[in-house]
């Protein structure tokens, strides 16, 4: 019977230069749906959790879900699963655009890269024709030029490219993998793993299409979801009009927009870099990923007199053209967190991150940490190569380039803020969890997101349990951000449900309007499965525990489920959230109890058996 799985994976051994096609393990597919869950099961089964993330033994898995490439709304996502060089934890980074759907059209649910090549290579996929090719001519080039060259060389402008830039090649610990020039599997350094394998890019073209198990029911299900997404104010109006950047003013007014490396929770000039200002002055158009009805993506353009304002040593011809972003997270990390209010420097730095292949959250946060070290006297101008005072927009743009190329002080920044702060003897300036930098919500002002950060399997991150939806936006129900009560259950529910969304191939943004009661039927009618909502939540719980067990086995223990001292004890100094700290101790024990874990975050035997993870 036809369904939306291709049931095939590509196994590419870069040491031996071989490509094999294998059947997907059907039992695992059923246990984990696909996507994040399935790829994590493969990684755990095939690698040692203590392996060197940048060694040959680590594997790099690209994976889609059963709804990727279908006409289910937001069914564009692919994920990259590996062991993170930044955190040492499991890494799963998720991207939209058109690459994931094209991979399905070519006939593959997943690609497993193993080993490492001696020389730069890229993988060329045209349906069944899969070849490892020499990448000497594109090694060292930015993502944008790489994509243009590969499309030209492969002779098909409809092909899709996922590539690393110089940052991945140079193993910057927060480098990412970028597709369609501006969409990225962004966090945890998956680009560095790709670089360690000397794999520059994947170019894919597929013409096979995707079937669904029950077409009549599938179209009923997706049309229902599309209607809800269209009618919901967030997905039908706010995100298309302003993108994620609309949150800048919201979080600032509330007093939850961290600035100056979390020394403050508001930014005086937030309006200058807000979603409203970008929409009024820099926005060219919004942009959608494959099958997306929301179109939250931004395309911005610099004014003519601003494009050369911050000169960097790059030959890229793209700086005068329009480019993607910036999104809320990137704006926050590279502007308020660094005390910067120059919108054009921000846009340019964001484009540079995309071209170099670097996570703007971790980059901005690492620069903010460096700025605090500088203002504290731990780094001098000679060491940094320039003044690194908060607010220095020139430093923001220059250091992106230097970090991606590991030149000068950028070599220190390329290690991330955990290692940077330790190197310069101020580990207390690291603002993150499990060696990964925080995203854009102050966990002192919003209690639940603090628990979500602390317990996240991939280190500080908002996309595994986006409790902001409830605590700030009131979706699906409003909870008080200042309260700790109920946040353990909220966090667990969001973590488990997100595992389902990630494994299906949908974008997490669809959940601003639809939930598992709409998503699970779409999975079933596409994939031929018969999951109930409860089944799906159980799968989400299985995925969470599987990732957690991997981390425990890698030596990342419950003691790391914590927050920096500045967040737990350093009261917010002023503004509407003045005096607040995160009360993690009031939430974490209940969270462990709800998870069926002991005080050291070790799952009980019963829980492991219940989830089939024994």
């Amino acid at each position, binding site marked *: 019977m036809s369904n939306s799985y291709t049931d095939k994976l590509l196994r590419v051994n870069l040491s031996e230069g071989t490509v094999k096609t294998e059947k997907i393990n059907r039992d695992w597919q059923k246990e984990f749906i696909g996507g994040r869950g399935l790829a994590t099961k493969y990684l755990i089964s095939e690698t040692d959790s203590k392996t060197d993330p940048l060694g040959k033994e680590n594997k790099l898995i690209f994976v889609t879900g059963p709804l990727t490439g279908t006409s289910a709304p937001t069914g564009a996502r692919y994920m990259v699963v590996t062991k993170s060089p930044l955190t040492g934890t499991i890494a799963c980074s998720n991207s939209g655009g058109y690459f994931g759907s094209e991979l399905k059209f070519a006939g593959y649910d997943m690609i497993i890269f193993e080993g490492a090549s001696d020389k730069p290579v890229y993988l060329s996929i045209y349906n069944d024709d899969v070849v490892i090719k020499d990448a000497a001519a594109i090694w060292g080039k930015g993502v944008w030029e790489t994509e243009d060259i590969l499309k030209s060389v492969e002779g098909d402008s409809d092909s899709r490219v996922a590539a690393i830039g110089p940052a991945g090649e140079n193993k910057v610990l927060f480098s990412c993998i970028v597709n369609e020039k501006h969409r990225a599997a962004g966090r945890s350094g998956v680009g560095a793993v790709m670089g360690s394998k000397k794999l520059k890019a994947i170019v894919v073209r597929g013409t096979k299409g995707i079937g669904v198990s029950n077409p009549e029911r599938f179209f009923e299900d997706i049309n229902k979801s599309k209607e809800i997404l269209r009618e*919901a*104010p*967030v*997905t039908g*109006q*706010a*995100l298309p*009009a*302003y*993108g*994620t*950047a*609309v*949150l800048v*003013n*919201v979080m600032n*007014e*509330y*007093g939850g927009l961290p600035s100056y490396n979390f020394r403050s929770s508001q930014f005086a000039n937030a309006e200058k870099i807000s*979603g*409203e200002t970008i929409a009024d002055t820099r926005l060219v158009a919004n942009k959608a990923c494959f099958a997306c009805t929301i179109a*939250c993506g931004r395309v911005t353009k610099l004014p003519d007199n601003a494009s050369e304002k911050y000169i960097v040593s790059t030959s890229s011809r793209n700086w005068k053209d329009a480019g993607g972003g910036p*999104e*809320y*997270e990137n704006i926050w990390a590279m502007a308020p967190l660094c005390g910067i209010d120059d919108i054009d420097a921000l846009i340019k730095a964001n484009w540079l991150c995309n071209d170099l292949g670097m996570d703007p959250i971790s980059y901005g946060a690492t620069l903010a940490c460096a700025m605090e070290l500088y203002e504290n006297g731990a780094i001098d101008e000679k060491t940094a190569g320039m003044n690194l005072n908060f607010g220095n927009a020139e430093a923001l743009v220059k250091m992106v380039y230097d970090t991606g190329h590991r030149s000068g002080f950028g070599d220190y920044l390329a290690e991330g803020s955990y290692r940077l702060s330790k190197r310069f003897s101020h580990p207390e300036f690291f603002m993150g969890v499990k060696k990964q930098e925080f995203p854009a919500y102050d966990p002192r002002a919003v209690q639940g997101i603090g628990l979500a950060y602390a317990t996240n399997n991939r280190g500080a991150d*908002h*996309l595994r349990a*986006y409790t*902001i*939806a409830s605590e*700030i*936006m*009131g*979706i699906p129900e*409003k909870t*008080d*951000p200042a309260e700790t009560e109920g946040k353990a259950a909220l966090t667990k529910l969001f973590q488990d449900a997100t595992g389902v969304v990630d494994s299906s191939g949908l974008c*997490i*943004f669809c959940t*601003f309007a639809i939930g598992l009661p709409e998503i699970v039927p779409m999975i079933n009618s596409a994939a031929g499965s018969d999951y109930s909502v409860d089944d799906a939540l159980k799968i989400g719980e299985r995925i969470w525990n599987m990732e957690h067990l991997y981390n425990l086995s890698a030596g990342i223990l419950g003691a790391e489920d914590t927050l920096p001292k500045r967040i737990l004890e350093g009261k917010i100094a002023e*503004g*509407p*959230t003045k005096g607040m700290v995160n009360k993690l101790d009031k939430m974490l024990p209940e969270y462990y109890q709800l998870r069926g874990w002991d005080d050291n975050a070790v799952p009980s035997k019963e829980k492991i058996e219940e989830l089939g993870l024994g």
Partner: protein
Amino acid sequence: MLIKVKFFASLRDDFGKEAVCEVDQNSRVEDLFHKMKIPKDLTKIVLVNGKSIEGNMDYLLSDGDTISIFPPIGGG
């Protein structure tokens, strides 16, 4: 009493960026909405001096308060 009212996102199309509204003593948020003809169904988040009123339109205003009003928004 004078109340500073800040509008965001699509609400700016109809109400501009910010305004100062004079209301009677003991006015509630509801009264201010009525006076400024702000449709409740177009708003989602209402903060008074940065604190969410959590849907309580009877929240009593004080002279010099700042109200921040947002439509439904989302993002990440």
